[in-house]
């Protein structure tokens, strides 16, 4: 079966297995020399690609719900979407959610996903109480911050390379409304949007869309979105209306001019400098793109690269300005450019977020792109930054090892828990992991 990530690049031929139970997982493990586990395949590159793939879509059962304390236990193939559909009417929400709800619990843990509230609540795995893991030697064990803690912190953000996550218990957060109070602030420059983040650092949720093609006086113009859970005591189930991009679009559809036109229109569409807080559904606030199924098809047959990097706070605004200037100068446009200010780092060995600035951009795949990305990699390394593994499709081993010093200990823990030679992806091999 032809397999690919969300960016539709790269593509490989793979044998994909769909276990329906722990016994099936065990059988897949013992019959294959090496494999990678895949959830929804929403990582952008080759994190869940390998000649043998174990897909968890049928490991999708709920196991327990402590409604009083907000603790949910479920199999790793359960989608965040299905969790929310269940817990929201009960007055609970995910402590941390990424920008799409079409992600499995296992994927959320393996990619250590972060959301619009990272500065306050950290990453998804910081709210995982416990997990059940199937190791490379067939053993099933429980891992948590207090039991087999080294394996816990390796598995969180470990890109599926430590074992098969079978199930997890997560701590939810209490809500009294399914709506979000959103404030939209138009920022004419990079300085303005960064000041905006600073002045709203007590806000629960904050994220900015940034125009990465704007030059001159418009450089870094952005739309900052601040969110709080509403308090109106109305807990509604989600709506189900979605549009779909039914087929792959032609490659020329998204180009510098159409993207520039989109960016300009999008920025101008927000007329007021600052809109009064407006109540919107949690789906509209957290998952605006989920309304368009298969939006990745807009990029055409060649697919696209998502480039998400972090610059630590020490790099300062100057570092961010420097990198953004290079990107603007290249003229390579992204109409989905997201800027976020992160909070503290966690204990995971391969964790991506730390205090600093994160920018996520999509680039259509064109011949000159890879050379440019390599140049930007060097600049980001100079500032002590790194790239997000769940978005990566082309980072080199040197760049990875220079920017993720935890990789050594990560490999030691993998060896200790029988993962070496059993779990590997195309990405892990490219990054020089065993």
């Amino acid at each position: 079966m032809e397999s690919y990530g969300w960016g539709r690049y790269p593509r490989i031929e793979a044998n994909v297995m769909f276990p329906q139970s722990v016994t099936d997982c065990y059988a897949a493990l013992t019959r294959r020399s090496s494999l990678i586990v895949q959830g929804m395949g929403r990582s952008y590159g080759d994190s869940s690609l390998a000649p043998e793939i174990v897909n968890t879509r049928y490991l999708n059962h709920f196991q327990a719900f402590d409604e009083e304390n907000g603790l949910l236990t479920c199999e790793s193939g359960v989608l965040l979407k299905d969790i929310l559909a269940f817990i929201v009417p009960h007055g609970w929400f995910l402590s941390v959610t990424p920008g799409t709800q079409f992600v499995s619990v296992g994927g959320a843990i393996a990619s250590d996903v972060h959301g619009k509230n990272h500065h306050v609540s950290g990453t998804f795995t910081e709210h995982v109480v416990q997990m059940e893991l199937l190791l490379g030697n067939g053993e099933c064990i429980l891992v948590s911050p207090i039991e087999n803690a080294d394996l816990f912190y390796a598995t969180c953000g470990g890109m599926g390379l430590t074992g098969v996550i079978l199930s997890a218990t997560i701590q939810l957060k209490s809500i009294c409304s399914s709506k979000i109070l959103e404030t939209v602030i138009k920022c004419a420059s990079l300085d303005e949007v960064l000041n905006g983040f600073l002045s709203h650092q007590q806000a629960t949720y904050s994220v900015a869309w940034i125009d990465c093609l704007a030059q001159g006086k418009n450089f870094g113009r952005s739309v900052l979105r601040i969110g709080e859970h509403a308090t109106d005591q109305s807990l509604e189930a989600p709506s189900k209306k979605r549009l779909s991009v039914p087929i792959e679009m032609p490659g020329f559809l998204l180009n510098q001019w159409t993207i520039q036109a989109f960016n300009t229109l999008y920025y101008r569409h927000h007329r007021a400098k600052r809109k009064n807080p407006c109540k919107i559904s949690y789906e509209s606030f957290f998952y605006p793109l989920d309304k368009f199924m298969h939006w990745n098809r807009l990029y055409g047959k060649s697919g696209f690269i998502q480039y998400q990097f972090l610059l630590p706070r020490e790099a300062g605004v100057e570092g961010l300005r420097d990198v953004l200037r290079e990107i603007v100068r290249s003229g390579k446009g992204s109409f989905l450019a997201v800027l976020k200010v992160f909070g503290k780092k966690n204990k995971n060995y391969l964790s991506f977020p730390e205090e600093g600035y994160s920018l996520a951009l999509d680039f259509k795949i064109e011949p000159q792109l890879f050379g440019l990305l390599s140049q930007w990699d060097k600049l980001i390394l100079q500032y002590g930054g790194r790239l997000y593994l769940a978005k990566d499709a082309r980072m080199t081993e040197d760049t990875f090892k220079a920017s993720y010093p935890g990789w050594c200990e990560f490999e030691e823990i993998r060896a200790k828990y029988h993962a070496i030679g059993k779990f590997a992806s195309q990405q892990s091999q490219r990054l020089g992991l065993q």
Partner: protein
Amino acid sequence: MKRILIIGATSAIAQATMRIWAQEKNKLHLVGRNKEKLHSIAMDLSVLGDSVITNAVLDLNHLDAHQSMLDEAVKILGGIDIVLIAYGTLGHQKTCELDASVMLQNLHTNAISIMSLLTYLANILEEQKNGIIAVISSVAGDRGRQSNYVYGTAKGALSLFLQGLRQRLYKSGVSVLTIKPGFVDTPMTQAFRKGLLWTTPGVIAKSIVAAVAGKKNTIYAPGYWWIIMQIIQWIPERYFKWMSL
């Protein structure tokens, strides 16, 4: 409160359907052959829904155990308002062509074993004078095609059996529903490349729940398969045999 018996409860369509039924305060009794999967599903329904969930393990190809399994189900549920038969196996057409015993096993699982269950169930519900029997057949049973005529034969035979049963049981106030799904993305079809006409178990489940509530006779799921199959059935045999559909 409905008393619902689901036979073949580990099937993807059955799971999606039960998730809907479990939301109301019903009693669900699940029967399937894989203990581990059954336990998983039962736990899932207990968390997600508000119903009483029980289960029993049985390989439905063991015909001599059908009567006792059904007697036990009636005892646990206190009667049967809805029974959904949702198990089946696609099998491998080419292997069936080469080995008659494999072909016969396919027919046994998909048709014979279900007819055995229906024989007992018909008598139970006829005595009750109410209830509905819903069985998942397939569009494949509407016309024999070279690509899957063994599976198609089983489903076609099943649809015919259900038709006769419907007419008989109507006189006792019992309904019989034939469900004919088209292409559904489930573990049974995981080898197939999915395209435009493919749908999910969730969509089929909604159709089943609505059709059971409405006491329908036959449904195509999704509904557009009715016109597709009308066209397929209309093609004269002298042209059809020339095609490779």
